[in-house]
């Protein structure tokens, strides 16, 4: 029992550290990718290729003066960024990062918590994420922050509907709410029994497209970055924030991006599964390669997020709401019904 707890503790710390590390280097990656997409060089002064830039940025954030406006609600003002960070880090608990490690005949799953309602937990925590932004924007007592917070909350709530319906479609295919099962079902690349590719994206690509668009909106990334659009809202919900509290908001966005990329690769791109994984018989080798594969898929999606950000201009607010309510939700409902009919017709339910 004690080894179990120690193992879980190590895993928690490792996942926590890796999420923060990847989020940290996402800021660097974002700037580099933005630069390359615009024929620039990007940060290249701090360390080789500018690799120490995130550390320098973090140090800068820590050293800055911390300003809490007099008119703000101080408790909520501090709570906001903390909550944003907390919820974004919480979600990593249910994601299986790789197949089980086997040491001395004991299985060590590379997943912090194997709950049988993992998907539900994920969406529960993600929807709490909006509170961090809302509380921060409201507590600032600044009209721009409030407008940013309003935009954020209405946007996230709108897109959560379409996202939820697309996830229901996914669950109809998988028949399970457990993230472990979803990963195991997409074993390998080609399923001999069904005669079809095993990853969910090949089973229902429309669901993936809807999910992807909603994930962009949920993480407040471009082209859905209205809550923090500099041109209209002076920075949005974090206008009044300074020092590391601002850093927490910015960081939480990158952690969110990392987690949603991980979720996308888990739900639709087979998670840790890779083609010809049955050819390797040593379970530990599979586990290590699987973990690497999982992280490569995640990093690829982070790259796509950034790629999109530096390609597409921001939506206007009414366009955003139109897309959410008039297109994505009907589309996801049609997708849901069609998938249901297909599954019923082929006798799978």
């Amino acid at each position: 029992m004690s080894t179990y707890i120690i193992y879980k503790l190590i895993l928690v710390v490792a996942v926590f550290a890796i999420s923060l590390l990847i989020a940290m280097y996402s800021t660097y990656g974002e700037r580099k990718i933005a630069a390359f997409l615009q024929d620039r060089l990007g940060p290249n002064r701090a360390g080789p290729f500018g690799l120490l830039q995130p550390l320098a940025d973090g140090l800068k954030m820590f050293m800055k003066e911390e300003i809490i406006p007099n008119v703000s609600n101080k408790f909520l003002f501090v709570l906001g960024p903390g909550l944003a960070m907390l919820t974004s880090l919480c979600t990593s608990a249910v994601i299986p990062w790789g197949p089980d490690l086997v040491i001395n005949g004991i299985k060590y799953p590379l997943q912090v918590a194997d709950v049988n309602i993992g998907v539900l937990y994920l969406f529960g925590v993600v929807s709490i994420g909006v509170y961090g932004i809302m509380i921060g924007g409201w507590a600032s007592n600044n009209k721009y922050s409030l407008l940013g917070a309003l935009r954020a909350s209405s946007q996230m709530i709108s897109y959560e509907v379409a996202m939820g319906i697309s996830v229901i479609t996914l669950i109809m295919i998988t028949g399970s709410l457990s993230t472990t099962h979803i990963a195991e079902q997409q074993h390998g690349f080609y399923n001999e029994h069904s005669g079809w590719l095993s990853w969910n994206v090949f089973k229902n690509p429309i669901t993936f497209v809807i999910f992807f668009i909603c994930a962009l909106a949920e993480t407040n990334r471009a082209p859905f970055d209205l809550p923090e659009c500099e041109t209209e809202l002076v920075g949005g919900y974090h206008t009044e924030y300074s020092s590391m509290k601002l850093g927490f908001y910015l960081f939480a966005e990158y952690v969110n991006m990392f987690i949603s990329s991980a979720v996308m690769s888990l739900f639709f791109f087979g998670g840790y599964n890779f083609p010809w994984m049955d050819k390797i018989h040593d379970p530990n080798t599979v586990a290590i390669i699987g973990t690497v594969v999982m992280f490569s898929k995640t990093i690829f999606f982070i790259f796509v997020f950034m790629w999109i950000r530096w390609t597409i201009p921001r939506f206007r607010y009414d366009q955003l709401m139109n897309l959410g309510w008039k297109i994505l939700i009907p589309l996801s409902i049609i997708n849901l019904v069609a998938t249901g009919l297909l599954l019923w017709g082929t006798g799978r339910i």
Partner: protein
Amino acid sequence: MQSLTNRSKVVSNKKMTFLERMYLPAILGGMRITMSHFFRKPATINYPEVKRPIAEGFRGQHVLKRDEIGAERCTACGLCAVACPAEAITMTAAERKKGEEHLYREEKYAAVYEINMLRCIFCGLCEEACPKESIFLTDRIVPSDFERNDFVYGKDKLVEGVTDDLRIDISKRQTKAVLEFKTHPEYQHNKLWDPNKSIKSKNAGH
């Protein structure tokens, strides 16, 4: 009417087709374009390490030349200050004392000579006005600074060094036309410093 370029397009407000209204193909097209830039060579030049190639006759930071024996050529006539359209040049003249012949070429010299680099427009009119071939613009770029006052360059920054390695090359500013113009007998006394001519022979000539 003939258009200036062939790139003008007639705008049409026709209804978009279903595929166009989906926007996804257009978005993918946009992403293809940005990706093509990803692999392109960056246009950025790492400035202090790498410098852009500059034109032959580049007009940058000024230099006040010395003559063959290392005496300042400037005689503080003030023609450069008069010619300067930006009024960037000021100077104070002083009389050469006995025993200072090796320092100042003419009997009058500039005790203070200042160019305000923030006012200067680097037109090169001072160089054109100078009868003593003293002031020249060079291919050096005026570096950035923090204080406005630091951009007022005095003689300490403008006058070139005495030894050969501290001399500033201004041959690029001496175009063929300029050199030909300067062969006029009126300019003979101003002949530029020539490394082939030794100081002795020059002194013997006078």
